[in-house]
């Protein structure tokens, strides 16, 4: 029998480091992080900086990087009232990837996932199967932030894009990938199903919902043979 093409897969990435930053949106730390609300940007140190609220950021990084990340960010905000808290253990994290990832998610979540509304690099917090979930569309390097691994960069993806800013690793967590330039505004069918493009979403929720999130994604993805990797 021919190979079964898996249209969508999911990975549990709960072990990744997560650091919450709370700071004045008008302050120095906010300026250094330089990620607008609703966007997620990769910094020079392989952390994904997700702006989750007007005064909050969530940094995702490889599993062992929480403590250095906290220190680094604390240094950025020295002198102002800011809180940097390691919340690695507070959240479950899953990555949903595939050509039908958006269709699967559209069974669970009311937000428009089509490109014009939720292009690559966008993030929102909304209800997914009744639970508040932070969703990050992160197509370009689906292999980058997975369970525990820091490196494994897949072929293609955003890295290959010309014009990428290079920032020295010691520099601030300034934006690396200004994803504004990304994401085509091309028409997708009304249901958001786009057979050509592979998409990838990070889904972050309170840790106690870890199994629940897994169960609902499995259920919603059954139609497309969703497999957990």
């Amino acid at each position, binding site marked *: 029998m021919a190979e079964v093409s898996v249209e969508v897969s999911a990975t549990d990435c709960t072990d990744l480091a997560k650091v919450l930053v709370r700071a004045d949106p008008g302050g120095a730390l906010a300026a250094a992080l330089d990620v607008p*609300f*609703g966007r997620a940007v990769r910094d020079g140190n392989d952390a994904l900086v997700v702006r*989750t*609220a*007007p005064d*909050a950021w969530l940094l995702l990084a490889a599993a062992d990087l929480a403590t250095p990340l906290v220190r680094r960010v604390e240094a950025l905000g020295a002198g102002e009232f800011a809180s940097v808290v390691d919340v690695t253990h507070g959240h479950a994290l899953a990555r949903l990837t595939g050509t039908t990832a958006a269709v699967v998610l559209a069974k669970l979540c*009311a937000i428009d996932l089509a490109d014009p509304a939720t292009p690559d690099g966008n993030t*929102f*917090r*909304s*209800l997914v199967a009744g639970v*508040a979930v932070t969703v990050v569309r992160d197509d370009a390097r689906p292999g980058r932030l997975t369970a525990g691994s820091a490196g494994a960069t897949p072929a293609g993806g955003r890295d290959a894009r010309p014009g990428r800013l290079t920032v020295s690793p010691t520099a601030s967590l300034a934006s690396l990938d200004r994803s504004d330039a990304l994401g085509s505004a091309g028409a997708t069918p009304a249901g958001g199903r786009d057979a050509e493009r592979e998409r990838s979403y990070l889904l972050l929720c309170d840790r106690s919902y870890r199994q629940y999130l897994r169960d609902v994604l499995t259920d919603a993805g059954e139609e497309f043979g969703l497999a957990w990797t």
Partner: protein
Amino acid sequence: MVLLPCPHCGPRDAAEFGYVGERAARPDPGAATPQQWRGYLYLRRNPAGWADELWLHRAGCGRYLAMSRHTVTGDIRAVRDAATGGAD
């Protein structure tokens, strides 16, 4: 489902929000008479028209919002983050 405009997140399903109540000034707890205090606790304008309300974008940005909402038509004429003062 009704869409509510969050000043941060944009229009979202009402299911993501929590209605807190009409906004009312808290009397000085040291000086208030029982009548004044209980007016604050219990009496409501409950207008069939524009109401000044406090909402929480619970499953979104987590911010409290001051909203001027029409209780008959559902229109919203003003909304802002409750932490930022502003024309009420």
